[in-house]
Structures are given as C-alpha cells and as structure tokens.
C-alpha cells in the first residue's frame, strides 16, 4: 500500500473506531493503565491489519514501506491513543529479531510483539556500564545445550511486563570490549531472573533492575553470531533513533500545541514560542529525511546521532517552556492534567541521558561524522 492511501484509510479507521480505541482509564492513568491501553490499541490495529504494514511477510507482516509504520506511530500519538515511549519498544526491538534471530524464531515471536500479546525489553545497560556500553560484564557461559547467564542489568524499560528480553552478554574474555559480546533472546519467565522496578524521578516504575542468576538460555536463542553482539547493538541503536524519533517528534508537536491552548495569557513570549517551534520543526525535518532514507533501504549509522541530539534539545526546550508558562500546574497542580504535564516535564530531563547521552552522541558526531579522530 502507498503512504497516501494508507494515511487516508488509517485515518478513517481511527475515526470510525475512536470509541473502541479510547483509553479505558480516567485521568492521568498509572503505568499499568498505559500498558493495558498500549496492548489494546496494538491488538485492534494488528487485527485490522494496520500494525502489520511495513513489516516483512515472513514475520506475519503485510510488507510495504517502513514509512507506513512511521505514519501509524504518528497517527496513534497525535490522537493520544498510546504513550510514545512505551510504543517505541516495538519499533526498536522487532527489527533486531527480524535481522538476527533464526528465521523460525522470528516468524513465531514477532507477531506476538506486534499484536500486543507480549512485551519485550532491552537488556543493555549495567550498573558499571552506562555510556561505556562495550565494557558490559553480564556473563554468558557456553554449556552442552546452550548458555548460562549471570549478571545484572539496569535501566531496563518495562522489564516487569516483559515476556522476552534482547540481552547483551559477555562471552569473550573480561577485557574483550566490543569484540567479546553476544546477543541473546531470553525468556523472562526463565528460572533465575529477578526483576526489581525502579521508581524514577517522574514517579513511574518504567525502568527496572534485572538480575540473572545462572539462567539457562537455549543455543537457538543466540542472535547473530557468537561474539558479534556489538553489531547487533550497533544496528539497533540507529533504529532506535529513526521511527521512534519521528513518533516522539509528533508527540512534542502535539504537546507544544496543547501548551499554546493551555497557557494563561501573557505567560508565553513570542520569541520563545517561535524558537521552540523552530527546534521541534528542525527535528521533524531531519527525522523525516531519516525515515525516507530507511524506507529507501539505506543503512542507518552514526548520522542518526544528529537526530537524537535534535530530539533531546527540542524535548527539553518544549518542557522548559511548559515549566515557565504553566508554573502553577507544574509546581502545585494536583489534577490529572497537571500531573501529566509534571511527569512529562520531569521525564524530559532524561532526554539528554537515555539512549546514548548527549555527550556520547556528540563524541559519535565528532569521531564518525567530522573525522576528528579518537578523543584520547
């Protein structure tokens, strides 16, 4: 299906099924509420076919351009039907399984994620490896029939809901850096896994610590080649900065518009509004070009760090403006609307930290795009 036809028919379907798609919870909603809403929307959209467009047929998709996925994510966000952060896990993890899992496994698993039957998480960061991902130490040891995993992950989004985890493990010598990493696809119900949610600054238990204590993982759950986990991670990170960023840009556009409607007279200065809109627009223009490159089959690489930097800058600019114009709501409001503005304002503080910090992104730009060599 072409994008224009997809856009028109999807918009029609969303209007027609607005009541069925609307959130079941009242007010700001808990994380449980948002997860339930996400699963419901994905199921309805999958069963109607929308959630299958843009994905390969060998994993239950209907084929077509990845632009269709980007538009679906945008349309769901602009109608406030899904939380973009929660939704984005699908866009980040499904491509990894499609590219690196054995074909049978991908065909069996991906539809469950797309349909909202399952939640997956991404076990990358560790207490000792935040920005320095290649130093990870969660150990996987070969056994007769697979792997035994022991170690700890942290900042694992939605692990308490997840049935599966894309896990980076150390399989080479301790100091083998990016050369000795292997990616595994782990069942979260496996004996030996303990999940402990972290209450984050914005009040949600979105991130978790995950402990692995001698967890058995079958050999056919190896993603890519043994010792090649770094390339799995390097392919995943640009994807994390493509479709998901387009959706997040749409979210910022929507919230900025809602701020214009909600801000009391005199609380917004024209030059600030113009400036912030310019930043949101710059992200949109850049991300749009990235979506089209992805759709044309180009391999995304370090240039997506520019997209991430633009997102982090725009997101903080939008919510700085929110905090300035809706100070009463942010500081002292206890109604659902205020709670939502406040949670989003606080969450925006992490935009320069998660998914590769602002500093790491700039190091990538300097080294890979500007050819400035190593930084030591």
């Amino acid at each position, binding site marked *: 299906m072409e*994008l224009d036809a997809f*856009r028109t028919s999807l918009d029609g379907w969303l209007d027609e099924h607005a009541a069925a798609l609307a959130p079941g919870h009242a007010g700001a909603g808990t994380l449980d509420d948002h997860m339930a809403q996400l699963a419901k929307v994905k199921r309805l959209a999958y069963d109607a076919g929308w959630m299958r467009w843009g994905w390969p047929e060998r994993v239950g998709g209907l084929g077509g351009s990845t*632009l269709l996925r*980007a*538009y679906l994510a*945008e349309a769901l966000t602009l109608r406030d039907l899904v939380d973009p952060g929660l939704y984005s896990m699908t866009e980040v993890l499904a491509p990894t399984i499609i590219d690196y899992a054995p074909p049978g496994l991908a065909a069996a698993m991906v539809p469950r994620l797309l349909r909202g039957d399952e939640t997956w998480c991404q076990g990358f960061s560790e207490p000792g490896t935040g920005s320095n991902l290649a130093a990870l130490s969660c150990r996987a040891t070969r056994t007769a029939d697979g792997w035994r995993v022991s170690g700890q992950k942290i900042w694992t989004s939605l692990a308490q809901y997840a049935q599966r985890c894309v896990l980076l493990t150390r399989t080479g010598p301790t100091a083998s850096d990016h050369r000795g990493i292997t990616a595994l696809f782990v069942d979260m119900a496996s004996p030996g896994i303990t999940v402990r949610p972290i209450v984050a600054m914005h009040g949600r238990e979105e991130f978790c610590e995950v402990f692995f204590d001698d967890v058995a993982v079958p050999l056919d759950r190896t993603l890519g080649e043994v010792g090649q986990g770094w390339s799995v991670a390097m392919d995943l990170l640009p994807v994390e900065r493509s479709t998901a960023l*387009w959706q997040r840009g749409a979210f910022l*556009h929507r919230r*900025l*518009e809602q701020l*214009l*409607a909600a801000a009391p007279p005199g609380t*917004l*200065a*024209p*030059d*600030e*509004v*113009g*400036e912030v*809109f*310019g930043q949101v*627009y*710059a*992200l*949109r*223009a*850049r991300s*749009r*070009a990235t*979506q089209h490159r992805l759709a044309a089959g180009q391999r995304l690489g370090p*240039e997506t760090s*520019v997209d991430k*930097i*633009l997102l982090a800058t725009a997101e903080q600019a939008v919510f700085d403006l929110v905090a300035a114009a809706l100070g009463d709501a942010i500081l002292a409001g206890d109604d659902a609307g205020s709670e939502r503005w406040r949670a989003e304002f606080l969450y925006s503080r992490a935009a320069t930290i998660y998914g590769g910090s602002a*500093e790491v*992104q*700039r*190091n990538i*730009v*300097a*080294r890979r*795009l*500007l*050819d*400035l*060599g*190593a*930084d*030591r």
Partner: protein
Amino acid sequence: MDREELELFGKGLRHATANHTGEALDAALAELGWRDALAADPRAVVPLLFELQGAANATSSALDDVVLAALDTAPTTAVGVVLPSLGRWDAPGRVEGEELAVSGVGSAGLRRRAAAVVVARTGDGHVAAIVETRRLVLREVGGIDPAFGMVEVAAGRVRRRERAPAPSTAWPDALAAGQLAVGHELLGAARQMLWLACDHARERIQFGRPIASFQAVRHRLADTRVAVDAAEAALAAAWDDGSPLTAALAKALAGRGAGAARRHCQQVLAGIGFTSEHPFHRYVRRTLVLDGLLGDARSLTRRLGDDLLGGRRLPAILPL
C-alpha cells in the same frame, strides 16, 4: 536535468565560484547557461550554486535571477531586482498615487542593469513595477562586509515605467524563493567554517596532542554540525513543501546554523581565526549580512511566534 547534465553543470559551477566573484562570476554563470538551468530545474541548481557561492565566499547577481524567476519575469542581464532592507521581508516599494516610494537593498550587479523590478505594496495588494536604475539613488554599502558589494537603494519617489498588478501570491512566492537561495548560501558558508575549524583542530598541537582530541573542542564542533545538518534538512523540506512558511523556517534555521558556526568555529580557530590573513573572518562577515538579507533568524522567529500565539495552534506541516 538528468544526472549527467547536472554533474557537468555542477563541475562548471564549482570551477566558476572557486575562481571568480562579482561581475566575473556573473559572466561565468552566463557562459554556463545558469539562467536556462534555473528555468529548467530550480530545485537542483539553486542549492548547488548558492552552497558553492557561500563556501567560496563569492558574490554574484544570481539572487536577482532567482527572485525575478519567481516573479515570472524572465531574468536577463538588463533587469535587476530591489530587495527589502536588511532584517526586513516586506516588499521594498510602496505605491503613492502615481509615484513609487522605494527603500531596500540590491546586489552589486544592480548598477550594471538598466532597470530594476520593484515589488510595491498598494492599499490591498502588490504591484510589480519596473524602474530605470538611473532613477534610483544607490549607495555602495561598506559596512561589515564590503566585499559583498551590496548597494542600498534609497529613492524618495520615482515615476514607474510600467506597473502590473501582481497576483496575491507573487511577493510571498518571490520572498520564499529568495529565502531558500540565501539559506543555501548560508549553509555553504557555515559548512566551510566548520571545515576550516575541523581542519585546524586536527593540525593544531597543544599539550602534546591535536586539540581535536579535547572533548571541549569536539563538542563545539559537533554542535555546529548538528545546527548545520538541521538547516540542511529544513531547506530540503522547504523545497518539498513549497510554502512561504517552511521557506521562512528554513531561512531562520540556516541563520541559526551559521550563527552556531561563527561562535564555535571562531573559538576553535582561536588566534589564527582572529587574523585577517585567515579566511575565517570573511565568512563571519558574509553570514552576518546574509542572515539579515530577506529576514534575520531572530526577527523571523519572533514573527513566527507571534503568529502561533495569535492562532493558539501549530500549523500541521511537513507530512511524512
């Protein structure tokens, strides 16, 4: 133009902008068939020429051609165009009875052209008038960038030679076309500043290592790259979109990108970049003037904010 033609044309432009400026560049462009190329494929050749011109710190009358083409006036060597004064983007003329009040700027080539098109505001729209150049009072602008060769057009009142009502979209369209061209020139200049600074950072040794290895230096250059890439994306998006709004946004973001390049690259180039023997100062001067031409980033941004606040909503622009 097909790919091969475009490549050949680009090669010619590269050579012309690298070796000529001003009147000589105008002659070289004429020889290359610039005006025909502009008529055939503006989307391909405007970014090409103006980015090269910005990178080479060259000047030409090509902006006149771009604006005239958008006004449906076939560009020739005989006719130039009066542009709004620096920092402004409203039409440079005003109709007062049988006369025309003109106030604006023009490119260096304006005095060599026999006549100039002046778009003028009337009570309820615009007209495009052709004015004999000798009737205009032209002042060569020295200012911060004498090499730019801009002229100030200050004529009290002139009688117009002919005057045709312009369609309601004529000035916004001409402005948008001009803003895109100047935006690409800013982009070319900003990229060149970044290239100069990166080159310097790799070569310059302090404390026993290239200064490119210091994170404080790298991050300045990375921030410049991000601002330049944002401008590039906004310019490309504006060509796709074709509306005055996205052209103004692209011009503003190109101005911002050049501002980031001026600030960060000056610091990285440090002492050598502060000398007149290093080419950097030419780009500082040029981008400051180009930012002002057809609306500076700050004013365009404030106007945008005014419009958004007035409507209390955001335009749904740039669909996937």
